[in-house]
């Protein structure tokens, strides 16, 4: 798994790690069941504090994307746990809210946001 830390990024480092792992799973670059590097190995590879890796993994685990098995390591979940449809929507609400706020802050219209979403969706399907 190739991860990269961009010092100039707007996101804090733990968020960059989370985003890259989520993207890698969504794009199939990491498969369900695959093992992730340990906190220590990833910390040394990326030259960041081990606590930062732990924070990213803890957050991904809380979201149900990965699971840590004591003594064995951290794995991408085979199946993302079933969520009530209502809750599924609620989980996205936060991200959607932020997207729209960001769009409003940058003066991007709602229609432009929809066009952008369709473009990104095409990229994922391809």
């Amino acid at each position: 798994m190739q991860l990269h830390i961009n010092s100039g990024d707007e996101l804090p480092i733990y968020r960059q790690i989370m985003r890259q792992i989520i993207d890698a799973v969504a794009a199939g670059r990491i498969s369900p069941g695959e093992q992730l590097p340990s906190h220590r190995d990833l910390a040394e590879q990326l030259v960041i504090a081990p606590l930062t890796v732990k924070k990213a993994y803890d957050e991904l685990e809380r979201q149900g994307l990965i699971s840590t098995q004591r003594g064995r390591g951290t794995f991408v979940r085979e199946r993302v746990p079933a969520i009530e449809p209502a809750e599924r929507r609620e989980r996205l609400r936060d991200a959607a809210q932020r997207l729209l706020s960001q769009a409003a802050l940058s003066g991007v219209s709602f229609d432009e946001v929809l066009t952008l979403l369709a473009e990104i969706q095409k990229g994922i399907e391809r």
Partner: protein
Amino acid sequence: MRVLEFNDVYRAYQRGSDVLRGITFSLEAGEVVGLLGKNGAGKTTLIRVAIGMIEAQKGSARVFGLDPRADALEVKRRVGYVSEDQVLPEFLSVGEVIRLHRGLFPTWDEGLERRLRERFALSPKSKIKTLSKGQARQVALLCAVAHRPELLLLDEPAGGLDPSARREFLETSIQLLNEAGTTILFSSHYMTDVERMASRIVMIHEGRLLLDNNLDDLREKFTLVMVPNTPEDRRARLRGAAGCLSVRDQGDALHAIFALEPERCRCVVEKDLGIQNAYCTPIALEDMFIELVGGRS
């Protein structure tokens, strides 16, 4: 457990001009804290108080609960220290400097010493005066960590080093952190290094504590607000707002730092303060530094 504690520390070099004016904060075991401030803010003085090189004139410093002056020997045995202007005896060889340190510390780890010597490609026979700045700093780092200190105090450890020597220094520190979970307080002007190492930021300015926050919170829960300072003067209104840390002029505009998330901040500025056309954005550590201390005299 509290590893390092500053309690209302004052220190002046000349009567009447305090370098430290009441600094209070502490480090728990395993914390890595980045100490930021302009040149002359008091960072070096503070670290020297912690290691016992100088004494607090009012207030106190405690390391492992001990007084770094009264219990100097025990504190020094459990602490590692590297500074930018550290001077190693020029006429000695690398091997002699290392041997000297090995003799001082009962907990010296010869395996770690060998590993670092090989990693840094340091020849024991080289005289200190023939080393480059980067190599000399590597000798200093080796001597500061080979006794497996519980607390590492780094004062501008990467100052004057080229990017690859800096990265090497950082990689070594991360490995040590991985192995032992050492508590670290380090001062640096390299914000990208600070972001990689630290989980908490302490910023001091003119001897006072300006900021003490979790690094990720600074990136996610603080906002830079930029507003035109027309048609009327908006300084006072911004300054009086809840969560506002600083306001400064930037051309015709005002820049303010708020301890609020960007969306929430926008609401406060627009609704509570009645200021439209505010631009609210998260802010990188380096810009935060400039906003908070750059504009202050």
